[in-house]
């Protein structure tokens, strides 16, 4: 008669009273040793840390610990990091009057971030340093030193001057307790810069301010979200690179990886084992190419990164566009193999088209991963050659040189992905950051949380039970559970039943989030990909004809009036006709060159009118950047990128 027993409300703690004292808890160091004696005892829990703080992390120390081999790897990684930091410190501050031990301590305290380390050393030495890098790049983080740090202090008596450093100037100190692994959640950084909150000059509603406050409250504590799209020519190794990063970060467990390895071997495609992490459908795996955008999440020191793995194949650019529309930053992967880079980069290759596309979709920060450098024996010349070509092209494409970073790496061997290189050939000439550090140093863009709510639908699927879910990126504003939303252009209303980010349910989502919304009060048939969810009080504009300022890409066939194109707007893909060429503009000044041109040649700029075959929801670029961008494609080639300047009704 177990159902008559009040199982649910049973107080287990009572039953198990005293249980804790007996099992699973070693009581010795906690209860019998007075704190003053502590330093003389060998403490297993922080042995690894304290010892590594002293000298080198010794292997036998770790073996004693009952942690798995992950720990071991970390230590190796740290060792490499430590060494490279040490080198950098020595080279930058050559007349350094500090012992090696002291430097090691500082490096570890500052989590191997070379800038911070140098700043710290310079600060403690009371000299006036010249900051080598723009300080705004890395959001400053402060942390209260945790108890473990204190332990270390007690144990390592030689570090007294460092402790002084803490006491002298605790406010300016940027220190994070050394975390177990780069992706562990310990040490929550507190964002002190307010730059991420967009300033809305005209607040149309009172509650805008409260949204902002709510955003600060909800998200101020957490790591910042960053959406990164991985782009590049087909077979550049995008999926493999990302799969390997995820594996190295511990996002994919060993068992799964082993399974992939075995299965891919069976198909005779062992080199695709890492790509399988992101390519999940059977079709993608057997063909060995990504077809739709793969999505994954991992954490870096300061960021929560959502990875969008774009397909590189020419035919799947529509999918890539819908992914890129959600991205904040991009990682361009190029193949360093001789001949391969050239095919991807030359006319018709996707390296160019992808880079142009992401730039036109508003991505300004880019990292270029020069992949497969192991195939050319980590040749520096090859690396420089590729960089040289990429630099001039990216400048033309409109990327600022300071916003582009180049990293040599190998996706298959995992070189220079999450830790500093160990390959001696690479180490001889490269001592820059590894890929993960580059990703970590991206600046998250401003999130327009105070604007009216907009979400562009990217996917529609059945949820649990009868409800159906849509997912997409919240472009602007915030959405709460229970809110009414208007789905444009059909103008259907629905109620938000629940919200989730990455399977975790939320009470509210903000601009920039990749949210899954469960809707009720609407039929699944009435919603389609590319629709916009918006605030019923402040709906998005709906039209079938608009005027846009376009930049024509390198096209073969000129654009004339009546040109049939496919219009891409966020995830929307619709046929459209360029029904009028209003004026041709000077590309750099924007002045009108010619009224009513007969046709538009390549690399020009113009104002055109676009007629859609049915109603679509969009916004003026001046009012909402995210929803005011369109892409025009024809016969599988992107012919132009445009900004909506006027809505013609």
């Amino acid at each position, binding site marked *: 008669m177990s159902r008559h027993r009040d199982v649910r409300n049973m107080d287990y703690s009572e039953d198990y009273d005293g249980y804790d004292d007996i099992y699973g808890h070693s009581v010795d160091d906690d209860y019998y040793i007075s704190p003053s004696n502590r330093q003389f005892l060998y403490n297993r829990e922080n042995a690894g840390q304290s010892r590594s703080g002293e000298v080198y992390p010794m292997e036998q120390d770790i073996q004693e610990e009952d942690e798995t081999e992950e720990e071991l790897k970390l230590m190796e990684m740290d060792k490499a990091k430590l060494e490279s930091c040490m080198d950098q410190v020595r080279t930058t501050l050559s007349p350094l009057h500090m012992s090696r031990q002291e430097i090691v301590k500082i490096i570890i305290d500052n989590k191997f971030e070379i800038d911070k380390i140098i700043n710290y050393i310079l600060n403690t030495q009371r000299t006036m340093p010249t900051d080598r890098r723009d300080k705004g790049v890395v959001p400053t983080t402060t942390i209260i030193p945790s108890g473990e740090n204190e332990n270390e202090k007690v144990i390592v008596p030689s570090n007294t001057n460092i402790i002084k450093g803490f006491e002298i100037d605790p406010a300016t100190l940027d220190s994070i307790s050394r975390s177990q692994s780069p992706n562990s959640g310990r040490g929550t950084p507190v964002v002190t810069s307010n730059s991420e909150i967009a300033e809305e000059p005209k607040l149309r509603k009172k509650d805008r301010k409260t949204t902002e406050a709510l955003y600060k409250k909800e998200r101020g504590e957490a790591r910042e979200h960053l959406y990164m799209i991985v782009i590049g020519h087909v077979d550049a190794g995008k999926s493999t690179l990302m799969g390997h990063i995820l594996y190295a970060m511990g996002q994919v467990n060993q068992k799964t990886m082993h399974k992939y390895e075995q299965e891919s071997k069976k198909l005779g495609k062992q080199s695709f084992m890492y790509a399988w992490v992101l390519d999940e459908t059977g079709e993608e795996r057997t*063909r060995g190419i990504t077809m739709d955008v793969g999505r994954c999440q991992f954490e870096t020191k300061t960021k929560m990164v959502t990875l969008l793995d774009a397909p590189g194949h020419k035919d*799947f650019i529509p999918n890539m566009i819908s992914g890129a529309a959600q991205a904040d930053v991009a990682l361009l992967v190029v193949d360093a193999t001789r001949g391969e880079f050239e095919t991807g980069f030359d006319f018709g290759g996707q390296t160019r088209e992808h880079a142009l596309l992401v730039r036109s979709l508003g991505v300004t920060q880019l990292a270029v991963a020069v992949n497969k450098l192991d195939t050319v024996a980590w040749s520096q010349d090859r690396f420089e050659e590729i960089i040289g070509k990429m630099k001039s092209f990216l400048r033309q494409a409109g990327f600022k040189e300071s916003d582009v970073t180049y990293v040599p790496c190998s996706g298959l061997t995992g070189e220079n992905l999450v830790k500093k290189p160990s390959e001696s050939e690479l180490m001889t000439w490269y001592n820059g950051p590894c890929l993960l550090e580059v990703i970590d140093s991206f600046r998250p863009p401003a999130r327009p949380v105070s604007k009216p709510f907009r979400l562009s639908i990217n996917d529609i*699927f059945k949820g649990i039970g009868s409800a159906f879910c849509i997912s997409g990126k919240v472009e602007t504003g915030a959405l709460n559970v229970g809110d009414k939303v208007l789905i444009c252009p059909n103008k259907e209303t629905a109620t938000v039943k629940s919200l989730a980010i990455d399977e975790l349910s939320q009470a509210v989502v903000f601009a920039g989030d990749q949210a899954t919304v469960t809707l009720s009060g609407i039929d699944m048939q009435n919603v389609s990909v590319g629709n916009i969810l918006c605030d019923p009080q402040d709906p998005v504009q709906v039209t079938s004809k608009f005027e846009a300022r376009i930049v024509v890409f390198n096209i073969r066939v000129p654009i*004339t009036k009546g040109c049939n194109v496919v219009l891409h707007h966020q995830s929307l893909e619709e046929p459209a006709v360029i029904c009028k060429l209003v004026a041709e503009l000077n590309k750099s000044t924007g002045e009108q060159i010619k009224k009513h041109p007969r046709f538009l040649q390549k690399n020009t700029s113009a104002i055109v009118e676009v007629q859609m075959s049915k109603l679509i929801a969009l916004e003026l670029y001046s009012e909402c950047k995210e929803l005011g961008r369109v892409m025009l494609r024809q*016969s599988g080639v992107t012919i132009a990128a445009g900004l909506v300047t006027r809505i013609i009704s």
Partner: protein
Amino acid sequence: MKLVAKNVTKDGEGDVTLVPEEPEDMWHAYNLISDGDSVRSTTIRKVQTESSTGSSTSSRVRTTLTISVESIDFDTQACMLRLKGKNIEENQFVKMNAYHTLELEMNRKFSLRKAEWDTISLERIEMACDPTKSADVAAVIMHEGLAHVCLITSSMTLVRAKIDVNIPRKRKGFVAQHEKGLQKFYDTVLQAILRHINFDIVKCILICSPGFVRDQFFEYLFQMAVKTDNKILLENKGKFMLVHSSSGFKHSLREALQDPAVINKISDTKAAGEVKALENFYTVLQCEPSKAFYGKKHIEKAIEAQAVESLLISDKLFRCQDVKLRKEYVQIIDSVRESGGEVKIFSSLHISGEQLEQLTGIAAILRFPMPELEEDSDEEA
């Protein structure tokens, strides 16, 4: 189409009698008949009779009527032509000037009388009566979630079915929904093919898509055919052709028709020829912009200089209500021919014709560059 009788005088007045034999002929008839023409055909009319006692009975009678056409309606889906107009020949059932709508039927002759038969119309009759049959092609243009099932005849591209399904994307750990959605989509397309494509008539079926959708679909198609033991599909396996296109939208059919393999197979179809001609125009526009022009005003000026080498014109322009305007277009064609130019009349039901229509409906490649035309840019209507 069968030409039964033709009585056209030297000054262009007269009548012809035709028998439409297939749906395509209705399209020709639609292009032949214009406002103000008189058409004589047999039809069914509901007639009300009032007896001497005052009670009225209505009955349907088959009678032959001649109407003066006021409006023409072409139903592309059913390939039917409806002509509305006033009766001009009184008979025992229908009074003079009573309105009637003629529905032209297959295999029933009709006679058409025009006050003036121009070269375009006469050519059209010739073309319609050409007995050499061109291949009928069916095409399925698709990408994930969208498919068009089309029939391409020599002068028409008819969309028989449009399938627009939402397929959930692949998500971490939820591949099943994506694959299920895809299966469902393929199934819908398969049903549409079976319903709309007559394998006895169609010589070739194009499956066009970006990526691997076409291969996947083809595989699915024959998997299902084997499973359900569908003889028709299995017998016609050789008729299927897999062609690349950049998307599943209708206008991507143009890319498929440019594929050399397809051109070989359907070379005599008007659609392929038109696509090529338009492509040619765009190439010239790219390389020598002062040799390619569009818009009536520019073309007229080029004709004055006898510069037109080949003229592309949409048949929609001849279907206009304005008789004077039509005459002007006929004039354009005639003068191009006189000066030795080539004229291509595009069917506005083909995709290339649709595009030409967007491009003012008239375009030309010139023999020599005329940069002076480029100067006066204020031509956009």
